[in-house]
């Protein structure tokens, strides 16, 4: 039987009257990496801390491995956490930091040190055992924090924005390492970030949060291609959002008219009336003279980005503008030029209006 690793049942966290986390429910399968994603203040870190037991829940139940842990303190839950600041104990060396959890659990020193050494080797820190945290680079400190957490072989491993203190180049590398480690050790990981790219890259599943509630819960692909709301469409990827009118529906598809072009899109439960069109930049191409159903418009802004051009195109006849990238940097258009836009309906999604 495959028990759920984590289950949140209608969990809320109130600070006075304000709800930081508002009636949140979700489940996490064992061995998966689930990301909590959202803008700052959306409640993702609070959710993580509720799971860790660092904050008591105001309402609802939290289950870890099928066991109700709502009333248990952090020390009694079988989870460990990698903190944003790493929270390495500055007065203990790497070995002592890594042993800490085992020793707290009552394991003998020699045994604990052997386990810790093995985990430190796994994260590539063999030979650093006697260093103090202050003598390590940011990336190494992060590995110590990971080693310290996985030494306990927790049911759930928590990461609170683990990459935010690393420089941009290192981020990608560490991100891949975390994912690889999770896959090899078959860990259940809950990962908090505000960076949507990071979330899409590492996750099996992403839970997007907004204002203390879950905005959408799904695979990275679902989130990107089928956002359920304007918020999700806007937060994940750079969507061009544009209000449209649904002018005809049948069982599966809805027709919307944009400029002179009619698009037939998956209906996704929408009724007649207004809706919002989320258009990914890669759905749009400049027509460059091709014929067919093009949206007519004019170039308003031009931006040279080296590998490609970026244009802001005002559509003729409708209030609205699209951002379009175009690979042709040799013969760029200039402001005021007329430009036709080709729309690839496959990368366009309808979302309900707000």
């Amino acid at each position, binding site marked *: 039987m495959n028990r759920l690793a984590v289950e949140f049942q209608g969990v809320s966290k109130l600070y006075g009257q304000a709800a930081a986390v508002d009636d949140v429910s979700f489940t996490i399968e064992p061995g998966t990496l689930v990301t909590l994603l959202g803008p700052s203040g959306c409640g993702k870190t609070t959710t993580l801390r509720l799971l*860790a*037991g*660092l904050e*008591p829940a105001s309402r609802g139940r939290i289950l870890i491995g099928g066991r109700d842990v709502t*009333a*248990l*303190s*952090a*020390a*009694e*839950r079988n*989870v*460990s*956490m990698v*903190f*944003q*600041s790493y*929270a*390495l*104990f*500055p*007065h203990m060396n790497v070995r002592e930091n890594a042993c*800490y*959890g085992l020793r*707290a*659990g009552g394991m003998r020193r020699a045994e604990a040190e052997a386990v810790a050494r093995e985990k430190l080797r796994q994260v590539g820190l063999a030979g650093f055992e006697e260093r103090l945290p202050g003598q390590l680079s940011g990336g190494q400190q992060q590995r110590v924090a990971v080693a*310290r*957490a996985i030494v*306990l072989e927790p049911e759930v491993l*928590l990461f609170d924005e683990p990459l935010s203190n690393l420089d941009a180049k290192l981020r990608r590398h560490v991100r891949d390492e975390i994912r690889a480690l999770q896959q090899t050790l078959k860990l259940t990981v809950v990962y908090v970030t505000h960076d949507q790219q990071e979330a899409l890259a590492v996750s099996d599943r992403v839970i997007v949060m907004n204002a203390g509630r879950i905005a959408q819960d799904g695979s990275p692909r679902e989130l990107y291609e089928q956002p359920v709301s304007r918020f999700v469409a806007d937060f994940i990827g750079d969507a061009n959002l544009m209000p449209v009118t649904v002018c005809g529906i049948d069982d599966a598809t809805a027709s919307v008219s944009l400029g002179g072009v009619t698009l037939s899109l998956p209906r996704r439960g929408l009724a007649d009336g207004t809706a919002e069109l989320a258009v990914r930049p890669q759905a749009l191409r400049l027509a460059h003279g091709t014929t067919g159903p093009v949206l007519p418009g004019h170039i308003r802004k031009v931006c040279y980005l080296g590998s490609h051009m970026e244009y802001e195109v005002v559509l003729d006849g409708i209030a609205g503008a699209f951002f379009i990238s175009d690979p042709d940097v040799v013969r760029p258009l200039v402001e005021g030029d007329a430009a036709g836009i080709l729309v690839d309906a496959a990368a366009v999604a309808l979302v309900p209006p707000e």
Partner: protein
Amino acid sequence: MKRPERLWLALAAAALVVLPWYGLEDTVDAVLALRPEAMPALGQAAFGGCFWLLPLLLAPALAGWGVARGRPRLLVAGGVIGIAWLALEGLAIIHRGWGWDFLSVLGPAPTQPALGWGALLFALSCAMLVAIGLARLGRCRGDVFVVAAILLTGLSILLFIGLPLLSVLASAVRDDAGHTDVSQFLHKLTDGSIWGFGCLHGGGACGSAWNSLAMALLVGVTSTALGLAFALVAVRTRVRMKSLLGLLSILPVITPPFVIGLALIILFGHAGMATVFLADHFDIPRSRWIYGLPGIAIAQTLAFTPIAYLVMAGVLQAVSPSMEEAAQTLRAGPWRTFRTVTWPLIRPGIANAFLIGFIESMADFGNPLMLGGNYTVLSTDIFFAVVGATHDQGRAAVLAIVLLVFTLSAFMAQRLWQEGRSFTSVSGKGDAGLHPPLPGGLKALCAAAVLPWIVLTVVVYGIILGGGFVVDFGRDNSLTLKYFLTAFSIEHGVGGWFLSGSAWSSFITTLELALVAMPFTAGLGLLTAWLLARQDFAGKGLFEFGTMMSFAIPGTVIGIAYILAFNVPPLELTGTGIILVLAFVFRNMPVGIRAGLASLSQLDRSLDEASLTLGARSFRTVRLVVLPIIRPAVITAMVYAFVRAVTAVSAVIFLTTAQYQLATVYIVGRADVGEDGMALVYSAALIVVMVAALGIIVLLVGRQRIGRRGLAAGNMGVGVA
């Protein structure tokens, strides 16, 4: 200890069955002599006729049942019943019969002496059983250490700060025979000696409340102005005074509060050095101007300016240079920059420094005692109401209430003020830049204020340190060791070396008691700080209020409150060394709280949390993570607790006895009978001891820390004399 409830259950039982129930002092002798009060509670109930002690057995019985059945509710019930009954029977049956009049309907009164070690351990065990029970019921996430810490700190604050203050209130509304009499209270409260205006319309003196208020306002203003001037010179000019600065920050700590007054008398008194000099050479008639408001104000300004300086230096350093640089780039000259940017930014700090000076002055006892003359202030009035010919405890209590209302209001005002405005624009990094130079006129003004003050300080400390080694300062300046030898001689006599100096006994007692109080003061303070900074629990607001009370209570009020609360059973502590230690601990607890809060606020919470998520409970976390990291704060709190206990005078002057004579009280006594030489040589010795104690911090913690700690202390509020 896997099952702490078994341990505390056993201790509770042992407290009833083994330890002597009554009497705290000479316990061993009492037990060996088989004196009746040395019997344990069970024996008292069985053979001593103290049947009212029997219900106490209910506590271990219920708790034991709870342990056996795994029912934590019974643990809580047992503990609560134990403590409640202990308090009830202790207050109902006292040494002279019924504690409450209405009980006389029950017939002739039994009596019982004051509680002893058995009762103490019993109460502690019961509290621990309650804590364990509550933790097992899921309070504070089942963490026994946290619940126990909250309960024990809360109870001890209630017992040793709350109860004494209640005793003051109760005593104020009671007449001499012990009956409640509100009219007499009102009569005493509105008495002319407190609120009179005699000095305004000629003839007579003003009331001590007005005197205290006037003095506190004056000293608040002068010490803040001088402190600001000094801070401006130190922080904003190129004058090199690093060493002077370091000295300044420790002066208020190591100076016993009355010593400056004493030095001023030697300087400006009727027969003082300066007075005589002026009379001899300039025909300025001798006078007693130093006694009264002018003298007290000068002494207190000297004493409290360093504190104001520390606050203002901190505030000035916290003003981001980039703000002033911005003003300069916007074409503002030095004056304009200072007037429109710097001054508004430091104004909240000035109000803060003023309130601290105000409270310090209100609470000061030593200087008014030395220099008061006919100018009566509240703190000394309380003292004379108790020890004087009148011996009117009710009046002392009323005066204490008035004084407490003043200091508490100022303290609350200071806290509100600090909460309301955050004047620190410091973010800890990235604020490079240079402060602009002071405007020329302001610089001259500051120098004009600071220089005479430095001269006076140097002269005063010169007298304090050297005065004990000359025959008669100012008149006969030949060197002598006679005072030193009288105080600190060691002689060889029959049976070997012995300490024959007259000061040794009080000196050693002081060091002993201060050393005993030191770990408790620091421990309680740091534990309280940890609870305040790191734990959330029901009633935290109340808990915080209780601890903050300890910041604002003047020493004199603590002294009188302890006398009133602990003079009679059930808790009879007066005359013991224990009450002195308790006074030290609860008086100086703020030292530990401040040090703890300051350093916990710099310690990232995620370190505690990391330890928790790694499976360590809070006790382990505190022991392995928090304490090692805040070690400097621990050492600082310990040493300051020691130093403040040694220099304390106001709280303990009521509580000392011939057996437990303290250094400061002894010195005040010497000065009172005119033995200035002895008083000075002894003060100098104390200062040397305390400099040595501070030297230990420097060695263990590193030099900069002292300055910072001083800043933190100054910023956080008050350390009342």
